[in-house]
């Protein structure tokens, strides 16, 4: 598929994943989503379109929601990466996870980790968003099952449980 190029070099990548610092030898050509799934074994983050168009791979980098399938892992040196696995603490679902569960915001569930991480970034900046603000924040995330109504309702429901996470 590709003409042979120079051998990509591995470098030591130091970053914080879900609150814990870790160091791994990572190829310069590795994508963040592959690093998270294959090296850190955090398979909650999904690869959907594989081209930055669907948002299923959304994670937080320094608190901002970004598609991890178009992010080079080595560009996260020294930064804080958060995935869906960070939201449940000691077996208890986070407020967005619980809201998606209770309000039926997930159907097949494949887009859900990305939806929740995009919503998590929104709620940290803006704890009481309007429906339009929720729609704008999730506009980079595609769902092929639910039609979005239940997803918006789920995020809305999560804003009403402000006491934990």
């Amino acid at each position: 598929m590709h003409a042979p190029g120079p051998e990509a070099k591995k470098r030591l990548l130091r970053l914080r994943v879900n609150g814990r610092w870790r160091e791994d030898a990572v190829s310069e050509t590795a994508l963040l989503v592959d690093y998270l799934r294959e090296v850190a074994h955090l398979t909650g983050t999904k690869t959907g379109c594989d081209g930055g168009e669907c948002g299923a791979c959304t994670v937080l980098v320094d608190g901002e929601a970004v598609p991890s399938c178009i992010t080079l892992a080595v560009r996260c040196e020294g930064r804080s990466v958060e995935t869906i696995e960070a939201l449940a603490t000691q077996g208890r679902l986070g407020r967005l996870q619980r809201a998606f569960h209770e309000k039926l915001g997930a159907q097949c569930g494949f887009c859900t980790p990305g939806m929740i991480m995009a919503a998590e970034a929104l709620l940290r900046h803006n704890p009481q968003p309007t429906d339009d603000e929720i729609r704008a924040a999730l506009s980079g995330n595609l769902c092929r099952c639910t039609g979005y109504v239940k997803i918006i309702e789920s995020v809305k429901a999560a804003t009403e449980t402000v006491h934990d996470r």
Partner: protein
Amino acid sequence: MSAPLPQFRLAAPRTVTEAVAAYRDHPGSRFIAGGTDLLVNMRRGIGNPTYLVDLSGIDELAEIRITDDGVTIGAGVTIAALAQNDVIVARYRALAQAAAAIAGPGHRTMGTVGGNLCLDTRCIYYNQSEWWRSANAYCLKNRGDSCHVAPQGQRCHAAFCGDVAPALLALGAEIDISGTRGTRRIFLSQLYVEDGKAHLALADGELVTAVHLPPDPPASAYAKIRTRAAIDFPLAGVAVALETSGADIVSLRLALTGTNSRPFLLAGTEAFAGRCIDDKLLNEVDRLVQKQVQPMRTTITSANYRRVAAAALARRLITTLGTAGAA
């Protein structure tokens, strides 16, 4: 595993000088800013840089400076930062609207002003997987011999789809360029060439470092059409900068994207100075737009629809700005 990227080395310069030197020292280099378009293309086997010069760690590129002489926007400023800047939102409205309408929120967080200005042109025969393109004998833009959109023609018709450029063109922007031969400043309009395969007038190893906007801009606005209201690139985009005195037009500048291989300023709008905004004028603008845009079958939407829609956007923006100015 995701579709693998081709093998490459990555440099992380801290200054523009280091970036230019890194590029010069490694044949087969590409500059990478946000990477939201470049990495997707690379994974589809388009282009095969063996060395990427990462511009994201260069602090001097990431500033917006506001002075009496106008606004200077570093090429590394993210689209999200541009869309949220108070001065840009208040005074250079077309630019803020264009930035806010780019792709989705995640892309805006990563993408940059320089990246959007130098965005690769797009076409349904080009932005496809390696498998798809090879099954279709490739195309003129990449590895092929003829343009599937216009097989009789000699050039590539892929369309430029950046949103920031038309807003900056309408607002009269200049840009700084750095390369091995030093720096130069040109009008943004001089950056672009009507050729989908080579649409940027940059020498090998040159990069755009900053955008300059004059102070006291006229009222401006940007609008575009696309299949979905987020993520998608524009099928047509229009920026208008309108200065009025009472009901009369002092100056009208209109720039377009998504329809040609380059973003361009509509020619012939000087003649509207002194006129008022009425149906006659709007019809004349409509005709000018429809005559000068050259949409081809580079998208799933028909060329004629994009032509008519571009003209409709132009009419709508001028009417809205005219009404706001008269109020």
